[in-house]
């Protein structure tokens, strides 16, 4: 398996083993609150779920992204267009029954090569995007009836500008409502179909997206006694030294 533009300094990507041989060595992980983590064995491994999803939704482009770190928490990368179909299937299939969306979060990847360095394609099918950045939205699904989880779904916007759009999951998982609003607020992902897409943390007049990596906070530094590193640079700028 080759990933030429993997970041060599990134610890999590130094392990080049395939996920299945890796996860098999680990002791079985017990997840939070008595939930069983998804195992490498069928039927609940992301790889097995991927096979089932491909059977049920042959037109959907879904790839397995392995996490080579000790957590071995592999995830499924779903195209935004297929996201609602995939989630509806995961929720409504009786022996899957992923009935609880625990967490939605976002990641800003202005440099797409770094995203692919952390999430190693497991089957070599995924291609590295070479131009532009994107925003990634990550979903953690649990099945409360079967007590398994989390199943990690990821999806990526086309770019970080006008096409930063992801279909909303509020119609499928009501718990997505506030979390999607938070991601809209802090990352600027537009969730199409969201019933009430407003800012939730910052005020309505605010125009920036503070969790984006290129966000620049207002420069209103006030002196503090022991500045260091980046704060020292601010201190030097705002309080010039006496000559």
């Amino acid at each position, binding site marked *: 398996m080759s990933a030429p533009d993997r970041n060599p300094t990134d610890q999590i990507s130094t392990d080049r083993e395939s996920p299945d041989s890796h996860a098999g060595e680990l002791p079985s992980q017990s997840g939070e609150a008595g939930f069983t983590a998804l195992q490498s064995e069928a039927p609940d491994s992301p790889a097995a779920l991927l096979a089932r999803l491909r059977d049920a939704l042959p037109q959907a482009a879904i790839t397995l992204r392995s996490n080579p770190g000790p957590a071995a928490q592999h995830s499924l990368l779903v195209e935004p267009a297929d996201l609602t179909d995939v989630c509806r299937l995961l929720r409504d299939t009786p022996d899957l029954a992923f009935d609880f969306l625990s967490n939605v979060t976002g990641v800003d990847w202005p440099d797409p090569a770094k995203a692919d360095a952390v999430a190693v394609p497991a089957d070599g099918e995924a291609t590295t995007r070479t131009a532009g950045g994107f925003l990634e939205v990550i979903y953690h699904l649990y099945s409360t009836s079967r007590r398994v989880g989390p199943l990690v779904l990821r999806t990526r916007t086309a770019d970080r500008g006008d096409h930063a759009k992801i279909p909303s999951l509020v119609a499928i998982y009501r718990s997505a409502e506030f979390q999607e609003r938070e991601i809209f607020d802090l990352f600027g992902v537009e969730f199409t179909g969201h019933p009430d897409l407003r800012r939730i*943390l*910052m*005020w*309505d*007049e*605010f*125009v*920036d997206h*503070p969790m984006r990596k290129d*966000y620049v*906070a*207002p420069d*209103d*530094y*006030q*002196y*503090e006694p022991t500045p260091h590193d980046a*704060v020292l640079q601010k*201190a*030097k700028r705002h*309080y*010039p*030294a*006496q*000559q």
Partner: protein
Amino acid sequence: MAIDPKLAEDLKSQGVHVTSFEQLINWGRSSSLWPLQFGLACCAIEMIAATMARYDMARFGAEVFRPSPRQADLMIVAGTVTKKMAPQVVRLYNQMAEPKYVIAMGACAISGGPFKDGYNVLKGIDRFIPVDVAIPGCPPRPEALLEGLITLRELIAKEKLMGKHRARHADPDGTAAFPVPEFGEHDLIPTANREIWNPPTVVRQAEGGEA
């Protein structure tokens, strides 16, 4: 004008209490502070603990927390003031009746504290309203809040009601309301009320002897 303190002591031993209206009014005000019942972060938990039986703020006459600013004369800013909350805090202050006092409780209310470099945190409530007592700590223990309360009582007891150095609320030209900041596209507008917030100019020493 003022009575000889020794004579006052002598009279007191005979059961005669001599005082001035200023002292009497200040004694009444300092002995019955009614704080505004609101908290912003973890400091509020310590504030609540200070009112409960173990620390018993009632001993100092400040146990009646009022849920309405119209009935309160002490604002304890207990916790991080976010930029989204700052206009509401200033508006609550403006709605309080004079005389009114402000305690900035904890590092966040004083300066922004550990969140000072955050994009969403106001670097001290003293940028918008006048603060009488600042209590450092993160969070300050209930004893520290009681110490701050006693300090405020001492300040009130020393307040002048007439003359050149009279208190703000006794000055007919003094203001009871301060401008409420507006939400801007990137930050609050203005970021501070320069009429009341004038931090000292800090001059760093030359390189090598880092200030």
